[in-house]
């Protein structure tokens, strides 16, 4: 299996050890090498399982893009309803965070024309270079190729 197909081991170790440190009272529990490998494999299989279930639900509702509701229904279907509440809370925070980012980006775009005019007034040579970073503020999802529409 190539490295692109598995979850990062350092992060895996951190997530697992964080939880294990809270499980035992008398001392921290460690994880063996084969245990860590099994956790990594389990995470990968869970992603496949959940996304396949969500995709089936998505197809049933005759849609092309897997959305939030499909994932929540998939969690109910796969008998992990205990995840729904913490996920809803996380999703709210995620939406707030994205909304704040959009405000910052839109403010930046308003200020850009003023800066451009200033630079163009100073010298035409330097003005060409200022347009270099114009299209960089597309939001965090654009570089990952994730479709942003929820339908």
């Amino acid at each position: 299996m190539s490295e692109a197909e598995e979850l990062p081991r350092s992060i895996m170790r951190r997530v697992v050890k964080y939880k294990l440190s809270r499980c035992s009272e008398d001392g921290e529990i460690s994880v063996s090498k084969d245990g860590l490998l099994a956790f990594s494999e389990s995470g990968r299989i869970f992603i496949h399982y959940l996304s396949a279930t969500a995709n089936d639900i998505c197809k049933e509702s005759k849609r092309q893009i897997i959305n939030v509701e499909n994932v929540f229904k998939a969690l109910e279907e796969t008998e992990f309803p205990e995840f729904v509440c913490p996920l809803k809370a996380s999703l709210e925070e995620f939406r707030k965070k994205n909304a704040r980012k959009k405000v910052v980006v839109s403010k930046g775009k308003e200020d850009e024309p003023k800066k451009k005019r200033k630079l163009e007034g100073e010298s035409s040579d330097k003005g060409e270079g200022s347009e270099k970073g114009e299209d960089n503020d597309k939001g965090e999802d654009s570089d990952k190729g994730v479709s942003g529409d929820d339908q």
Partner: protein
Amino acid sequence: MVMAEEEESGVSIQLEFPKGRVKKIMALDKDVKRVSSEALFLVSRSTELFLQFLAEKSAQVAIEKKRKTVNLEHIREAVKRHQPTRDFLLDELPPPSQPTKPDRPTQPAGRPKLDPPPRGTRRIDLFFRKPELDDPAQAQPPENPAQAQPPENPDQDQAQSPVPVDES
């Protein structure tokens, strides 16, 4: 260790797993075409919650067995105990490691090891055996190679000389 940044509401939302990697894993399934950014966030966060859940259950098994290290056997046991997880994960986990030592030591090929004879008796085949010296370098091969061979008659192995009787 602080895992994620806490917001005012106390909900940690900073993802541990990179979205790009999660999306690549999802894309390995040819049926999955497109995913919204929020759905991708949920899948990634769900995976975190699932791994924490599995770690907790595995730790419980390890504690029950009085172990300080969670290994593959503990994870397999934790998966077996939780029906929804068992359904999709048990067959996919690596197989349990085989015990390195066999249950009983295997005997080397050759003469079977027999029980020692009763006191006051000696085995007839001792006559045919090479004398065992402390220094193996001193051991010389017998003049007649036929003497080193065990007797052809299998009954001879079992035969024992009579116990010497004091006639006086």
